[in-house]
């Protein structure tokens, strides 16, 4: 068997693949957080719970109505995004004039409510969700076996991330959004409906989390606690990348996923903490984050 640095290549590439998968989820979730923070000035602690909701939504759609994976990929983000819009309209809207710590506290409370409710009814063990027919099996790349579904997750998440980047950085709608992030009252004075834009932005960020949740369902199983620990890692990812740049969030997400995967190969004991250690190092060297601007 071939080895690299004394590690069998099979294990190395296997962990690299898992790292890329995790990185795809870090990227999608931190992207949503960054978009929401940019316009609402709120750190959405419910993000992990909304990711979990997306997975549950796919599960219910399949169990109750027989709607399969592909339609879930469209429907779950819309449904969960709509729930997000209701949350924004009824609760978050009251907090914009206050210190943004309150936004964090409110969304933390909501996350507890959602996770508690689902744990009550579905326990803390996961429920399996089958990989869709079309993506069963895999490719033999010679040096490793690449399951089709994993390839699909990595590929489509890159497309989604780049699509989001394109909309925000290269379209007219995106330019409104960036302008409103800089100076909402001025943009409103130009006749653009900023409150509605804020609502839709929150809905979009939440839908992104739900989309990630549906993608995660066949890999990690559907579990009420699936978002709880993930969101803390994503926070560290956001601190490392800085929330100033969309591309930065994507690169940081994938990069950290890969580093985490490699740590599992070379020093498994540290694989849970490596991202936090990197956060500490980045804070010491460049406190604003790798892609952040000092303000």
């Amino acid at each position, binding site marked *: 068997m071939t080895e690299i640095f004394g590690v069998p290549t099979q294990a190395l590439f296997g962990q690299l693949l898992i790292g890329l998968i995790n990185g795809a989820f870090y990227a999608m979730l931190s992207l949503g957080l960054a978009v929401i923070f940019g316009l609402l000035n709120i750190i959405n602690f419910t993000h992990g719970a909304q990711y979990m909701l997306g997975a549950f939504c796919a599960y219910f759609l399949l169990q109750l109505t027989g709607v399969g994976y592909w339609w879930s990929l469209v429907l779950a983000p819309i449904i969960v995004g709509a729930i997000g819009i209701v949350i924004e309209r009824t609760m978050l809207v009251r907090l914009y004039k206050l210190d943004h710590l309150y936004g*964090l506290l409110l969304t933390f409370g909501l996350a*507890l409510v959602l996770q508690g409710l689902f*744990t009550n009814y579905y326990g803390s063990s996961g429920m399996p969700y089958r990989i869709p027919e079309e993506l069963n099996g895999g490719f033999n790349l010679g040096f490793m076996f690449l399951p089709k579904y994993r390839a699909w997750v990595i590929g489509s998440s890159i497309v989604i991330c780049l699509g989001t980047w394109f909309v925000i950085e290269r379209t007219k709608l995106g330019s409104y959004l960036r302008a409103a992030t800089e100076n909402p009252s001025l943009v409103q004075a130009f006749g653009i409906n900023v409150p509605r834009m804020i609502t839709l932005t929150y809905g979009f960020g939440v839908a992104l989390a739900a989309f990630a949740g549906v993608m995660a369902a066949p890999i990690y199983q559907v579990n009420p606690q699936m978002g709880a620990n993930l969101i803390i890692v994503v926070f560290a990812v956001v601190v490392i990348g800085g929330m100033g740049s969309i591309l930065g969030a994507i690169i940081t997400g994938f990069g950290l996923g890969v580093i985490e995967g490699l740590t599992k190969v070379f020093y498994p004991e540290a694989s849970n903490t490596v991202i936090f250690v990197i956060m500490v190092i980045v804070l010491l060297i460049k406190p604003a984050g790798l892609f952040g601007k000092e303000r």
Partner: protein
Amino acid sequence: MATTAAPPAAAAAAGEVIGAAGDTRTFAIATLAMALAFAVAPHVGVYPVFLMKALCFALFACAFNLLIGFGGLLSFGHAMFLGVAGYASAYSAKNWGFPPELAILFATAVAALLGLVSGALAIRRQGIYFAMITLALAQMVYFFCLQAPAITGGEDGIQSVPRGRLFGVLDLSSTLALYYVVLVIFLTAFVLIYRIIYSPFGNVLKAIRENEPRAISLGYDAERYKLLAFVLSATLSGLAGATKAIVFQLASLTDVHWSMSGEVVLMTLLGGMGTIFGPVVGAFVIIGLENYLSGFGQWVTVITGAIFVVCVLAFRRGVVGEIGAWWARRKGRLGGRS
């Protein structure tokens, strides 16, 4: 940050009523009344173990309040100080045979050191990032505790910690004796926190909270003040954790978990951020609630979350803050009439 940090502005107004700088007498009377009530409580049928648990958490919440209420810094990782100090006191008492007073002191020092390191890192960023960094650091500490079973006992924790004899004289295996020791620890720390808040240091801290650039332009080294506040808060949280470990003869992962960090935020928010007595009230309500609902499993989480939401939306001053504001309004009305 362009926005000024003024989360407890409303609460601060209430704080003026309950123990403003010149109003030490009101504070002394209220504290004496509280001490008396606690001293009598176990003799009128209140379960002392419950009281000890609530007092430990009240101290924890007061220490946390020192940071959020008067420094304007929201830490989302305070469980690390509670939990690590718990491990340190349990480990030193059990494996090194430390007497309880030494174990608690040692653990408090460990928490202070951890506070110094994590605080120095966290104050490099402000506002929302500060909260995220403290949360991430606490999660790192959690994983460390989980993966170092040689020290922490992993999933089992450190069990059957000896309570020992205080100063070699007082046998703490008597629950009532232990209760009064915990009460003395709590009251001492409580008065100390009051002294800190109304010291020149506390006033500078409040100035930094209200307007950091201005405080800096007046020549105050804001970072140093924030760091000192963080270390003080961590130290007192550690004292709470160390005492708790001796009381329950147990140090476990629960105390390092992020949900514990959330719980102390909730206690402070519910009781009233930036008020002196608020965290004590909040801690008793939450611990009482958990005791009462302990048979309902995950519903506790749901209710805890719901209280969070209600507090943020409708009740930002907390219980004590609301009472203070009501009192101030009433006084204002009376003052207008005379």
